[in-house]
């Protein structure tokens, strides 16, 4: 008898949500950016904002038992955040090497592989009755649970080797939003440099969107095209802000793709939604309060079809804006140039303001050298925070740290160093605050030693080597207070943060086909050794009188 009643109540409760959601708002935005080398960067952004704390992320711990009712925000995600008390979460799964020289440095994390960081309510803080389900014991249990949950949600093996990858940087990765003030929070950060994670799967991502891929700009997300591109990335960013009464949670889901129309068309760089995605937008997503397509216009002569309804200019870049709120018929946007072939040779690239190059030099055994080049192309000095996370078997020798500016050794540019030495299996964490002089190239070199790891610690593909995660560089305000810990860095959408490329490092690797031979060999040696030792131990030593042998020499 209770069941029909409950169903009826549920129905009644959801009816108003089908209309205009009161506390939830969904916006979608697609930016298309033609790049100087003929490629096109498409950035999808789906933002859901919840202003009612009861429906959003669990800020008031007393209300944990309150039922979750959301219309637009995916329940699977909010439930995770509530269970593990996470007001801020960032997850990005990227494939490919972002080329900052040719593609610029837009906001957002552009790390190769997977990166995840979250501010989790410190588990030592007093919490409600009992721990949430799936939560492990001790420190980092919530982080562990959160990782496992997200790994399941996005079908990615995020949780593998979590302990070897998790760090808690002291200076980097400050929250982009606000943190609830009544409990302490702790930062956890992990990155998976290699691509064993399953990044070529859009379905779990699309499932989190209110219109799935049936309407709105999400219609364009065609996996056959997105995963044939030069670069693609997915991201989920959750942040909480203290703005409205009970706080406001924003869930931003992003997909970025870099297409190469020149490669596909065989020489021409003209593109349209149809040619890039093999799809067009046929209807708008009714759940979206705003649905906008923006095309950043290049400086050269070009032709944009259809004519945009609105033109905007931000930072000297002109943007054509199309409103997709009411798409009547098929919507396709395209751009053409007055040229037969795209000529790469005429392209001039503007180098980004901050460049990092990193290499680990040396043979597969013995000492190697970690060499980092930071270039500041601005005509003014910059303060940056350089963060290096290395697996425990790579030990950095800090006393060999040398800094050179344009080939001249200078020690004064290092402002602070924070170093967490590696304790197996936890990684090394090195955070250095540097002052880069104007228009300069700073070389940082450090000697590093590659450890000899146990054979059970090798990965299944042992002869591949180990991937080292990318180093991160955060620009800092130039005249910050003396205490670097208090500096708010990061800001909105990972502004200015840049990543180096990942590295592959060879460790001394045993021949894994050999254990059988080794067992036979060592057994033989042990048997021989045992034989003679046993002989000596059990033998009685007596003096024997030898009769002389006639006519026999001692030597030949």
């Amino acid at each position, binding site marked *: 008898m209770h069941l029909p009643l409950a169903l009826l109540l549920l129905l009644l409760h959801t009816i108003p949500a089908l209309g205009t959601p009161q506390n939830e708002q969904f916006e979608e935005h697609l930016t298309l950016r033609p790049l100087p080398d003929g490629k096109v960067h498409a950035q999808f952004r789906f933002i859901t904002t919840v202003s009612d704390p009861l429906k959003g992320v669990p800020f008031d711990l007393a209300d944990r038992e309150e039922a979750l009712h959301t219309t637009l925000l995916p329940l699977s995600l909010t439930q995770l955040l509530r269970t593990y008390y996470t007001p801020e979460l960032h997850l990005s799964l990227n494939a490919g090497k972002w080329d900052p020289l040719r593609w610029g440095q837009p906001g957002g994390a552009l790390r190769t592989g997977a990166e995840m960081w979250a501010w989790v309510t410190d588990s030592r803080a007093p919490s409600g009755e009992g721990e949430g389900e799936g939560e492990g014991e001790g420190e980092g249990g919530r982080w562990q649970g959160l990782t496992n949950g997200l790994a399941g949600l996005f079908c990615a093996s995020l949780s593998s080797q979590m302990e070897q990858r998790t760090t808690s940087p002291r200076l980097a990765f400050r929250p982009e939003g606000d943190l609830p003030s009544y409990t302490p929070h702790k930062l956890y950060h992990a990155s998976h440099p290699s691509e064993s994670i399953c990044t070529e799967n859009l379905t779990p991502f699309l499932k989190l969107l209110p219109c799935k891929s049936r309407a709105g700009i999400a219609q364009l997300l065609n996996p056959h095209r997105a995963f044939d591109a*030069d670069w693609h990335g997915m991201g989920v960013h959750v942040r909480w802000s203290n703005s409205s009464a009970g706080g406001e949670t924003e869930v931003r889901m992003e997909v970025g793709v870099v297409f*190469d129309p020149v490669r596909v068309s065989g020489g021409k760089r003209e593109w349209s939604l149809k040619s890039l995605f093999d799809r067009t937008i046929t209807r708008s997503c009714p759940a979206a309060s705003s649905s906008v397509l923006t095309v950043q216009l290049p400086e050269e002569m070009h032709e944009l079809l259809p004519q945009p309804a609105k033109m905007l200019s931000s930072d000297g870049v002109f943007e054509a804006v199309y409103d997709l709120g009411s798409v009547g018929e098929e919507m396709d946007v395209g751009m053409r140039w007055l040229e037969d072939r795209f000529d*790469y040779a005429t392209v001039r690239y503007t180098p980004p303001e901050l460049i990092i190059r990193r290499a680990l030099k040396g043979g597969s055994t013995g000492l190697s050298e970690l060499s980092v080049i930071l270039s500041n192309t601005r005509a003014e000095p910059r303060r940056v925070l350089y963060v290096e996370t290395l697996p425990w078997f790579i030990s950095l020798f800090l006393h060999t740290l040398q800094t050179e500016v344009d080939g001249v050794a200078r020690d004064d540019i290092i402002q602070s160093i924070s170093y967490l030495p590696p304790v197996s299996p936890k990684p090394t964490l090195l955070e250095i605050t540097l002052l880069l002089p104007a228009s300069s190239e700073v070389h940082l070199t450090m000697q590093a030693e590659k450890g000899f790891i146990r054979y059970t610690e090798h990965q299944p593909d042992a002869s591949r080597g180990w991937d080292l995660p990318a180093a991160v560089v955060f620009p800092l305000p130039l005249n910050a207070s003396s205490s670097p810990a208090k500096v708010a860095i990061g800001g909105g959408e990972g502004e200015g943060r840049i990543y180096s490329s*990942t590295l592959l490092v060879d460790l001394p*690797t045993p021949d894994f086909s050999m254990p059988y031979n080794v067992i036979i060999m060592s057994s033989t040696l042990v048997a021989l050794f045992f034989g003679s030792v046993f002989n000596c131990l059990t033998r009685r030593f007596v003096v*024997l009188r030898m009769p002389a042998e006639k006519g026999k020499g001692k030597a*030949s």
Partner: protein
Amino acid sequence: MSPLSRLKALFQAPPGDDRHVIRLQRQRRIYTRVGRISPYLQLACYVIGILWIFATPLAELGKSTYVDENALQPGQVNTYWEWAEVHAADRYLEGLEALKNSNATSQEKAGWLKDKFLEMGIPSGTQEYTFATSLEDVHGVNTYAFHSSPRTSGAEAVVVSASWTSLTGDPNLRGVATVLALAGFLRRYTHWAKDLVFVISDGHQDGMQAFLSTYHGFNPSTLSAEPLTLDGGVIWTALAIDYPGHSFSHLGLFFEGLNGRLPNQDLLVCAQIIGRWTGGVPVILHNTVDELRQDLPIPQWVRWTAAVGDWVWKEIVNRRAVKEWEYRAQNMAEQAAWMASGRASGMHGVFHQFRIDAITLFARPSMGPHGFHSLGKLTESLLRTMNNLLERLHASFFFYLLSSPASFLKIGSYLPCSVLIGVGCLIGGLRAYVNLGWERWYSEKLDDTKWIKRPRRLMEGVGTVLSLVCIGAGVYAYADSRLFAPLLAAKSALPLLPVVLILTLLPPFVVLLRPNSASPAPLAPMVKACMLFSLALLITPLSVLNFPLSLFLALLAIPLSLVQPSSGILPFLALESLNPVMLLLLQSGRDAIRIAVWDWQVLGAYALPLACVIWLPLVWIGQAICIIQE
């Protein structure tokens, strides 16, 4: 007595004694017997070792090659290289020929190549380098281009390269054109899992040595090179394309690297399978065509033996198995020669020192029938195979001798030849050492001989060896310096005669400087024992590292171990013929030494120091044994 009953007598005890005494007596008898037969054992080791060398080319000892790494799947892809790409290669070739005809400098050539890469949209750069050697300054400009493959992290890379100079010494224009056309073609596909690095290196091997040293952060003292402006990942495999002719008939595989390093055999096997089945090109080793020799006609001087001669010629000399043996022996001898001399057979050879598996695909110049079409197709397919790798090549063999493109010898089948000779040296040395410790003493009172112990002159023996090695090191310092360079440029042997005479005759006489000793034991056998020990210690461990080099030392060891102590001036002079300094008297020898000096200072190939510090002193020690009159 029959051998069996003799053997029995050895183990059986004379009746009536204590069994412990019997056991000790038996032990002593066996030791005596072993001591007595040790010369025959040593001889047997030498003879079996030498026979084994001749047996290695036999088909029965060989094994067919096979792909060990399952991920490789050679030849299992559809290739897209077509005539449009051949046309592109032809266009590049026109440009390259124009450059060559206008005698363009390295700088101009590299600039032209860089522009071509940039036109394709591949980031590119040039690198100027100079090797300061004692002979001359080697200068050049490399061009490189790094294509980041879509959706890859850029941590792994494959190199496709060509040097301006072919291994034949001709300009490698078509090789360079192939790499350019491949660069434009390969970047159109998204299936690459590794970055593609295209390198056009200047010179033959020096350019690539400069590029790779800089890439890996090594700075040889002789090299000054510009830093690279682009970053790449870890290079796993590399292909060098060498196409000096205008067409080619066979694809020759060159694989021997510097200092006897070899690439993983899987790479060679894949190249062989893909060349044969995807490219449709017959694959050969080096430049040796896989044809058996023609029947030899019976020479005039055998005619008189009539039927016997006919039979010998028909059944032995012109037998198919013998011809096959010769073909295999030729292939193995060439591989052994490259490895023993420590030289790289092509530009690929400089990769191996950085743990990169690399081979040269050599298009054997001919009137036809193959050209860019087959070469591009098989290179594409080979790159696809390398692209499949999830790990470094590690499954197959790193130690092997290839007897034909499709058959090889495992380490276990060829190792015994040099190890046996090394063991022979050890036996000889031990015997000499034991003998030196005892002296037969005649007692008049008892009218009997007796063995008494005497002290050995071990330190003097070791001292002789060490002092001659030190002189060898001095010779190395001289050969490595600028003082030696003019000698190599000499046109005739006459001005070199004093140097040759000093270096071949004088050093052994250093033993005359030894302090007087009152010891009754002779010195010459002690020096010989020390020489044999050092030979055994060199040959046996070297055989697993660089087998041909250890075989070379083993072959040197045989005449040296025949030297009789204090045998006088005639054997002394005969040993002159083994002295590497004698090479200076011949024009070809001077060229070889010049190459060794160049290879050592530019590439780090160890032929020069080895010849000075090991080969030369060994001959001197042999000569010293002849002239020591104690």
